[in-house]
């Protein structure tokens, strides 16, 4: 049976980017479908009735929801090349821990940087920089979070990089000044075709953030 892979996604989503990268790492042909989040498609609502969110991966008609679960599924379904998770149970646990950390902490913190102002924004900025420093410390001198090879944690984090110029603009700070090693890591990841092809231009994302700020009345 032919492999039919559809990805319901939203172009600036750092979570959707994870799934795009994983599919490309494995050389999987897929159909990308852009969702309008203010007018969700019947297919999206049918395939993710519980959360009604993107990304949704539909493989031979069967949906997989939640980006980190999709990346693990892709790794296990196309296990012939470019392993995403390590094989050792302890290293796998470490990789899962860090993506869980990103999921739990990063989204809320980064949101405060661009979606709020005044004291709330200052607190958000402080938290966000702290998180980045924790991640940079975990990276250490390794080329990638997993060591020599690009993997699960790298995929979990790199999508946020397209949002960095936006954070810097509206938060009025330099991420490279705070975390130079993390920026070096991001540039290293961007050299991979799977990443470069899956991430939108930062300028487009920054414009998207500007539009959101206007819509939320932050400006």
């Amino acid at each position, binding site marked *: 049976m032919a492999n039919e892979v559809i990805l319901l996604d939203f172009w600036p989503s750092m979570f959707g980017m994870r799934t795009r990268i994983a599919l490309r790492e494995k050389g999987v042909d897929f159909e990308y479908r852009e969702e309008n989040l203010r007018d969700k498609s019947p297919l999206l609502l049918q395939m993710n009735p*519980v959360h009604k969110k993107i990304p949704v991966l539909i*493989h031979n008609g*069967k949906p*997989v*929801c*939640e980006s980190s*679960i*999709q990346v*693990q*599924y892709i790794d*296990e*379904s196309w296990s012939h090349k470019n392993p995403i998770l390590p094989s050792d*149970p*302890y290293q*796998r*646990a470490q990789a*899962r*821990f860090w993506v*869980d*950390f990103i999921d739990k902490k990063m989204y809320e913190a980064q949101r405060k940087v661009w979606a709020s102002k005044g004291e709330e924004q200052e607190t958000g900025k402080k938290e966000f920089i702290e998180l980045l420093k*924790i991640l940079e410390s975990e990276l250490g001198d390794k080329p990638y979070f997993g060591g020599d090879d690009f993997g699960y944690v790298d995929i979990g984090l790199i999508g946020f990089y397209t949002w960095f110029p936006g954070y810097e603009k509206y938060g009025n700070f330099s991420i490279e000044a705070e975390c130079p090693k993390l920026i070096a890591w991001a540039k290293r990841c961007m050299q991979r075709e799977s990443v470069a092809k899956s991430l939108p231009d930062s300028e487009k994302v920054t414009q998207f953030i500007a539009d959101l700020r206007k819509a939320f009345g932050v400006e």
Partner: protein
Amino acid sequence: MASSTILLDYWPSMFCMRARVALREKGVEFEAKEEDLTNKSPLLLQSNPIHKKVPVLIHNGKPVCESLNVVQYIDEAWSDKNPFFPSDPYGKAQARFWADFVEKKFSDAQFKIWGKKGEEQAAGVKEFIEAVKILEAELGDKPYFGGDSFGYVDIALITFYSWFGAYEKFGNFSIEAESPKLIAWCKRCMEKESVSKSLPDQEKIVAYAADFRKNNL
């Protein structure tokens, strides 16, 4: 080298209970070290510097944190018996999805029932019942969430059963009336020694929650 397995634990934590159930399912001998969360041990702070939370599994000196992560690790490190996941990737993805649902929706809602009052508590009861009905629909007529075998989603969810007495008392509602199938599943799980040995009595949890409410609300 002798294998050493230590669990940094806290008796009423439904998250710690998951690790206990998982270890017992695999027949692993472990040492549970009870933590005082108002005075965390140096070992805890050293083993989980990021979150400083329990449970922490320390296996041959190496720490694993976050309860669902601990359960998955236990499944992979002791893969010779009682697998927690089906073997096919889609089945695994489904199991991970539902455990994540428990984590995202069920867990937050239940805290509001015993940890809050007034409007917030009422909202918690409503969200809890909604989550329970979704879970009940997912369970369907299967004996366990994983199908014929007790597995990952069952482990993720059953530990909250020890808190049902507290939810009913402080939320003033009956879980069985809302979801008889879920209660039937709970009782089926409790027949397993790995579960019954790992969960405290509901009365002890009710007393714990009452204490918390007295001191915090």
